């Protein structure tokens, strides 16, 4: 994992969303289609390849909680909207430093889940699954398992949350592909076990689109250089 090792060697504490998703994708986790754009022509080119509607997001390593910083525009339907949004995001980012703009497919799923990992001082890498989006902190409806985990553990995690019925066929939406979700949770556990540089992983939201889970936003935090050397 070159991205991880390089970032860690350079003393970075987090990967950008774009980098984080590349690492996730390398572990087989489905992520949104997306390209980085440094300028407007690159942005339009990316939009053409993905097809509208799209999402534009400011993208820099230190840019967590992007929506709170006014650097996210969703459901952009055409070139004119895209140009305006691009300009606004560049302006907002100029205030806080540099970065590129991430051009991303817009997924309209209404069910938002969260999946992640933390490195616990006592038990090591631990995988989390639960209700995502703004519900994560409000309902605190999550389940943990100590990594490495097996598919059966992942299935149990899905049954352990109070809001488990969100995974069923509800309100005309398809039942969630639990096997695909289990693969993601198992992969997250493996990432923690195999990469001592990773301190935490946060996939929030993990959106359910036509029954399939896709990582729409992601953040990978790294341990400090000193921390990794101890391991």
């Amino acid at each position, binding site marked *: 994992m070159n991205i991880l090792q390089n970032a860690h060697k350079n003393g970075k504490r987090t990967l950008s969303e774009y980098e984080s998703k590349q690492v996730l994708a390398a572990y087989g986790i489905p992520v949104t289609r997306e390209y980085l754009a440094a300028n407007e022509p690159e942005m339009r080119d990316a939009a053409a390849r993905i097809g509208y509607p799209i999402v534009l997001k400011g993208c820099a390593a230190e840019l967590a909680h992007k929506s709170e910083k006014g650097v996210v525009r969703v459901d952009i339907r055409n070139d004119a909207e895209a140009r305006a949004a691009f300009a606004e995001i560049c302006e907002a980012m100029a205030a806080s430093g540099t970065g590129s703009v991430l051009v991303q497919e817009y997924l309209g799923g209404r069910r938002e889940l969260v999946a992640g990992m933390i490195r616990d001082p006592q*038990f090591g890498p631990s995988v989390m699954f639960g209700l995502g989006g703004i519900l994560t*902190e409000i309902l605190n409806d999550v389940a943990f*398992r*100590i990594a490495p985990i097996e598919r059966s553990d992942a299935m149990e995690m899905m049954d352990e949350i109070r809001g488990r019925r969100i995974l069923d066929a509800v309100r005309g939406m398809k039942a969630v592909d639990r096997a695909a979700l289990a693969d993601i949770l198992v992969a997250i556990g493996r990432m923690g076990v195999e990469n001592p540089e990773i301190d*935490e992983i946060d996939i929030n939201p993990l959106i359910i689109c036509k029954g399939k889970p896709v990582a729409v936003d992601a*953040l990978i935090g790294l341990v400090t250089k000193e921390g990794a050397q101890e391991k």
Partner: protein
Amino acid sequence: MADRDAITNQLNQIFHPNSVAIVGLPRGLKTGKVFLMALQDQQFSGAIYPVHPTAEEIDGLKAYPSLSAIPGTVDLAIILVPHQHAPPVVYECVEKGVKGAVLFTAGYKETGTEAGRHLEAELARVAKESGMRLFGPNCMGLYVPASGLSFFPGLSKKPGPVGFLSHSGSLANILGRIAADKGIYFSKAVSLGNECDVTGKDILSYLADDPETAVIGGYLESIGDGPGFLSALKAASLKKPVILWKVGLNPEGRKAASSHTGAMASRRQLWQAVVSQSGAVPVKGFDRLTDALMSFSLLPDDLGDRIAILSGPGGMAVGAAEACGDEGLKLAELSRKTRFELSEFVPQTGTSLTNPVDVGLGASLDIDIYVKAARALADDPGVDAVVSIGAGLSRELNETYTNEIIRIHRDTGCPFLMVNIPGFEKEFAAAFCQAGIPFYETAEHALGSYAQVRTYQIWRKRHR
């Protein structure tokens, strides 16, 4: 540390010693004296060697100025000297060929001082290099009634199926003192202390394979090697129930986390993960711990979910019925025969002949109504267990109630869960437990504990 089989062999020798030395045994009635009193109380049959720098004899036993002055071999040493004097004694133990040593005194890592940490690291080093096993420091050591070993006088001499590990010596004492009244008897109980050498994980793995242990219980304050403990816990839970009271789970932020995952990862959440992944049985509080140890000790395999409730007090009958639902259990459908039998002796007013069976106030004067109803319910093939909430108005009536229900339990094999009505004699409560019938303070405790045993039984069947 050496491999599992080697540790098991060592622990077997230490748990069944032929001789015990008590180093630093006081002459007068000071704290350390309890260790001698405990051995004498248990009628320890091996040699006891007090070690004291000047005394010739202590409480009728010949005392020795040092370990090396003892003529025979010493299997177990209990070390009571102040922490700063401990290392030379531990070196002497190694010289003497002692198999295991219990370090009672505090003053090590738990003080948070550099000196304390250093002293403890030295003990760990000696244990590692010599192969002698150290318990503690800062622990009470071992209670093995089958060997006559104990850390406190007044604990039951009768051995039983419960293996226990504890980060609190005094909690182990208190549990030991009340255990017999609840039908809880021990194979081995180990007070772990600071775990400089022998860890909770070692004891857990030992008890998992120990043929004398059928139920494992534990009180834990901290866990050292998390992943190692988890795998030992998984392996143990597949073999026998492991009931754990873990403290230190108050919600608190893991750290100033930048991620959602980090913010959610409380100690409680991670402990829940350990429990779910291992099949361990979590309990909270001393009462629930003792309830669980009693229930797992006394209730049979293959518990069913069809519960019959027998009660004199109507409100308690309804409460018990509600607790059944809360715990995922069912109210048994009583057979026509049972209902007919009940109708023959249960008064017609102020009572109920369907489950929950309310025999009314009159039964506390005519205890035979309880007894006959209990037999009818226990005989019903549609009933998997009977919850009995009853008491008579006099000691004589309660004695009859106790003896008769014990008889019915023996005749039918149907599990009974007895529920206290305040005022019921403690000696009869203990008589139930000693006859293999668990006795609880409330119906909620009874059904909660029953459901816990049943859930574990189902889990184990599924994972075997």
